[in-house]
């Protein structure tokens, strides 16, 4: 099953709010083990990986720091709660699991 991707868009170098978001996201993503991956993009610095289409769509307009789960914007200019992030990841994992079990 493909992984769920959590993407962070932060300032370069990170602001205090960006640091807070990174710390929170790293902790939550770790709970889900290998099923979830975290990518961090810094504004103005070339990306090492191809971002999701969802990220590419909002890249120029989104307010940093921002967090997306599988291309869907979860929060911008702030840090969502850990529970909000867990719920968003679980939802995406559920969708992927259903899709692949039906095939």
């Amino acid at each position: 099953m493909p992984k769920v991707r959590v993407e962070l868009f932060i300032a370069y170098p990170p602001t205090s709010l960006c640091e807070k978001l990174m710390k929170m996201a790293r902790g939550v993503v770790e709970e889900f083990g290998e099923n979830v991956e975290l990518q961090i993009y810094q504004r103005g610095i070339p990306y090492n990986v191809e971002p999701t289409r969802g990220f590419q769509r909002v890249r120029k307009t989104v307010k940093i720091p921002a967090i997306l789960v599988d291309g869907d914007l979860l929060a911008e200019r702030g840090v969502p709660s850990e529970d909000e992030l867990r719920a968003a990841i679980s939802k995406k994992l559920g969708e992927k699991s259903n899709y692949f079990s039906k095939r």
Partner: protein
Amino acid sequence: MKRMRLLWLKPKRTAEALATEEAILRLRLEGKSPSTLCFWRGEKCLNLGFNPVREKVNFPLCEELGIPVCRRQSGGGVIYQESGNLNYSLIAKKGELSLSNGFRSIGEAIDSAVVSALRAIGLDARLMAKGGAEVNGKKISGSAQFMLWDSLIHHGVIAVDTNVEMIYELLPLSKVKVTTVERELGRRVNFEELADKIINEFARALGVEFCLGVVADEEVSLVNELLRLKYLSCEWTRVDKCQKLEWNSS
């Protein structure tokens, strides 16, 4: 009336001025720095916008002349910086600026204030459609904006006594015709006098009062960190050879 700090920066390099703007912005977000209007003049430098069209720049000439290159946070074109330019930067929380004269945006208010200041010293200046000011169909001032959270940097440059021929040589593909304040007036202009006019117009347009201040120690520390991590790093500037010149001149 709201008060804002006024700073006269004396950066050795353009990168230092850009780092100072960002340090103030970051500390403003955390409530540690006041909203600030800065004026500065810098040494020779090519100041690239956030997404510059690099093909337009004559980098070999830059290297030959030892002109360093830096990249700013805001968008817009390439600026040839030198001591003949007067630069201003307004760093503030968006909500604390009252647009008193019916302006639709802060950018429009500030650009209009610059036009008024230029008219006050005797120029027939006009607002350009894409921002900035022109005199007799030639660009004399440009500006750009960058926002982080609820705060912004609005910075701009006025060509007072700039070497216009050098701009055309460094940016040979640019179609923008440029002029300077002194060229249009046909006389020498005092930078402080022009800055005073701008301060008065900004105060009127934004409904604030400016008070002369100094750069705080915490701001200086962050400036040094931003220079090291960002504005003097090849990772940010993405121009290797010219950037080395900036390092060597430090």
